[in-house]
């Protein structure tokens, strides 16, 4: 079966971000960018399914600026067979992402779409569930285990109280949580190989999709800073502070 995976280019999660002084957004110029960690887990899952013989072809999709080609090359170095970049410099909000990916799904006809559960920049956690809705497919969000069983998949989802098990009909959209797998590191030979894999570039217009944002960002601010704390010398001093100063115990 064919699997489609989506990869988003984001600011490296270990970089301390800087809010622009004019409140228009977050500084992205000259900041280290990388593949969204949950998308890495999605690619890894697809590659493992291919290695296990369940999957025959992996198509990686990204939406954004020209540099997203690098993110797609990384996905191909991990094991994706080809890449599609829907190129735009506009802000693409989750509903628009879902519409773009739906247009590609209509063309490519995969059996499963695997996406990260959330991107660590916007923290929306929406696109996968939205795509499932637009396609009328079943969904498994925040997934930590996938077993394909014929025309269905047995999945385990991470929920607030623990774990939930579902059997979902295929085709389906699956979003990944942290415990699904540990993504591999890409090797130099695989990076070289990835350079030769096909990468197609499209414009959103060509897909007939309106990506105009529905949410207008009025301003972006830094959160209020916490006041400086104090170091306590020992446990007795800590207990005294909590009882007499903070009065929380």
């Amino acid at each position, binding site marked *: 079966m064919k699997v489609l995976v989506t990869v988003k280019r984001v600011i490296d999660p270990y970089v301390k971000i800087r809010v622009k002084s004019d409140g228009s957004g977050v500084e992205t110029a000259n900041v280290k960018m990388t593949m969204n960690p949950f998308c890495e887990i999605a690619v890894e899952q697809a590659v493992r399914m291919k290695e296990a013989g369940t999957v025959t072809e992996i198509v990686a999709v990204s939406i954004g600026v020209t540099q997203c080609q690098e993110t797609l090359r990384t996905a191909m170095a991990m094991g994706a067979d080809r890449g599609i970049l829907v190129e735009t410099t506009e802000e693409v909000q989750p509903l628009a992402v879902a519409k773009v990916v739906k247009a590609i799904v209509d063309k490519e006809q995969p059996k499963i779409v695997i996406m990260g559960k959330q991107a660590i920049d916007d923290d929306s956690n929406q696109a996968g569930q939205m795509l499932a*809705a637009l396609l009328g497919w079943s969904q498994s969000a925040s997934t930590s285990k996938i077993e394909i069983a014929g025309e269905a998949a047995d999945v385990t989802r991470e929920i607030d*109280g623990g774990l939930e098990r579902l059997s979902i009909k295929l085709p389906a959209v699956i979003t990944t949580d942290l415990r699904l797998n540990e993504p591999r590191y890409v090797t130099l030979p695989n990076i070289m190989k990835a350079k030769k894999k096909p990468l197609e570039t499209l414009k959103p217009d060509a897909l007939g999709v309106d990506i105009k944002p529905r*949410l207008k960002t009025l301003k972006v601010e830094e959160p209020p800073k916490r006041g400086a704390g104090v170091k306590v010398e020992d446990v007795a001093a800590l207990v005294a502070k909590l009882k007499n100063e903070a009065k929380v115990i």
Partner: protein
Amino acid sequence: MSVLVIAEHDGKQLKPGVTNTIAAAGKMGGEITVLVTGHQCKEAAAAAAKVEGVKKVLLSEAPHYEGLPAENLGDLVKGIAAQYTHLVAPATNFGKNVMPRIAALLDVQQISDISSVESPDTFVRPTYAGNALATVQSSDKIKVVTVRATAFDAAGEGGAAPVENLPAGADLGLAKFKGQELSKSERPELAAARIVVSGGRGMGSAENFKILEALADKLGAAVGASRAAVDSGFVPNDYQVGQTGKIVAPELYIAVGISGAIQHLAGMKDSKVIVAINKDPEAPIFAVANYWLVEDLFKAVPELTAKL
């Protein structure tokens, strides 16, 4: 204006966070209706009817709503959405699963995880692990919103809303509920606890978490963990506090053996008082702590438990 709150419950009670969501809905303006769907959930509907500010409760029961599946719930809510200006749910795993599905069916761009209601169409939401607060304005006719429960005080009791039956929608047959494995604990729920004691990689093993549990029991606290502790298998996934885990804001948060990665801070830095215990004097967690103690946790934690 009229707001529909989609309730998360266990059949008998509302989940923590729902009353906070109802309070947030109150700030959006208009009458509040609460939708309780599930398989045998009359008691939860009765609980919703008692929440202050609720005008009406809709109860929709069917076996195919067991486990609150996004596909069938999405279909049900789509059918009644036109009567409301706002559809709201807590930004828990339930809300994250169901609400985007509803939003897309209505061709609406959802607003996730709001921490403030500025006006009926303008909201504040944390992005970048809480390091940037974005104020966003929606141009959609219906606003689909999930609410960060810790940012709103819970609505009280005192309501007496009528409970009306809403006929169940179709079973789309896309997903079959097979069961849940829930962590059993006598301790308070992490998201609702007044005190949280969390352990990180420094705990070293699942066995060692017992010393944190002893401290938690002395304080009547919930036990949480950093991602590192969950990934190492010390505790189950539902213990995780952080950007992609649970967001908590208790009166007292005690971080033990947690270095303080950005992703962890995102889940707890709105706590009122933060205590950090770590033997590394350079641990980043100290930057957000009100009180910090540089000491070996295996000595400090039992001593703290004994002194309380």
